[in-house]
């Protein structure tokens, strides 16, 4: 059983994605994006709702990345000062 069913491919565009892939510790660099529609400043977090990696776009200046607890992507905001 092969990852790609057709023979003779040599280009990524020809590879049919038909399964998850264990990279066995190898890396990918110079990668444009992991999540569709990313723009500069976006960071990546796992979204348990969608079950996929998702982007977290920048907040307004000086906001901080706040956790919303397990299962939820972090959000940009001002922390509760407790005052």
């Amino acid at each position, binding site marked *: *059983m*092969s*990852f*790609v*069913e*057709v*023979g*003779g*491919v*040599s*280009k*990524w*565009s020809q*590879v049919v*994605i*038909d*399964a*998850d*892939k*264990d*990279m*066995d*510790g*190898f*890396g*990918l*660099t*110079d*990668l*444009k*994006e*992991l999540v*569709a529609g*990313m*723009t*500069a*400043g*976006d*960071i*990546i977090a796992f979204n348990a709702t969608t079950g*996929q990696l998702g*982007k977290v*776009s*920048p*907040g*307004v*200046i*000086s*906001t*901080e*990345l706040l956790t919303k607890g397990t299962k939820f992507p972090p959000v*940009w905001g*001002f*922390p509760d*000062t407790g005052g």
Partner: protein
Amino acid sequence: MSFVSTGGVSKWSQITIDADKDMGGKGLSDLKQVAAAMVGGDLIAKGLGGILVRIPAGIANTVLTSQGALMLPVWAPGGLYLNRYFPANINLSVPTATKNTTRSHTKSNSMAGKLPSPFYSVDVAEDLGNLVKFENPAITLPGSRTKNTTRSHTKTKTITIPSHYDLNIVVGGAEAYNNTGAVFTDETAAAQSAAANDMTLLPLVATVGCAYYFGHVKLFDLMTLNIGTPGAGTGWVIVWEYWNGAWVGLPGLVDGTNQFQAAGGNHDVTFTRPGDWATTAVNGVTLYWIRARLTNITTETTQPKGTQAWITIKT
């Protein structure tokens, strides 16, 4: 089992990357990195150049802070605190002082003349038999009574008296000097930021004469350097100097950075503030400067890098 069936390539390394790829919801696991040279604690973000980049971990207790749309977030002091806007710490030295107060007073109360005279008469008009009992001896009262009271007490109160304040603030200037080509690089922003390893304390290929300058607009008493990557090498000698019309050695020097080879973290360079310290222009920036100058080196196996630097002014 092959990644690609026989007749074509069989290894991932043989695949030519010629297009974006929609993974169709499929996953990649055991992936070492998506950005070059990632290390533990790095975050991934979309870079300004259009590809994914790493955001190195910030120093302890900083928080990821947005720089606005289309800008990479940075690690910065957290919360709605003053030092976000004025990144200085004021260290208050409060030695204790003891104030002893002793009060002593004597109070004498003389009761003389304030009591009735000791005269009593008993007329026994009739034999009252055993109804009256005479005291034996006779009842007497003192003619005067003196009460002497002496109070003495000691009260000790410990109070705190601030003796001086230390102002700790990021350096006002930082210049890297590469003696090869005699090139200065202004790294002031790098030295003021918490971004890791953005200060090139020595060039990748260090030669005698290379130096790093730390400056401030006011006279200061010590410099604190956060080393991100300690340098390593042999025959490595760094001298610390200040300007008084010429570059001369700092008096009373204690180099906590161990010539940029101390372990990662904050290290103080302490010295006796020179009385003849003068401002001078380094790469066009006029400040009170100190510099770490390389006077000897045999090998440089690891380039030292810094993360942030502060000066302290003692009052």
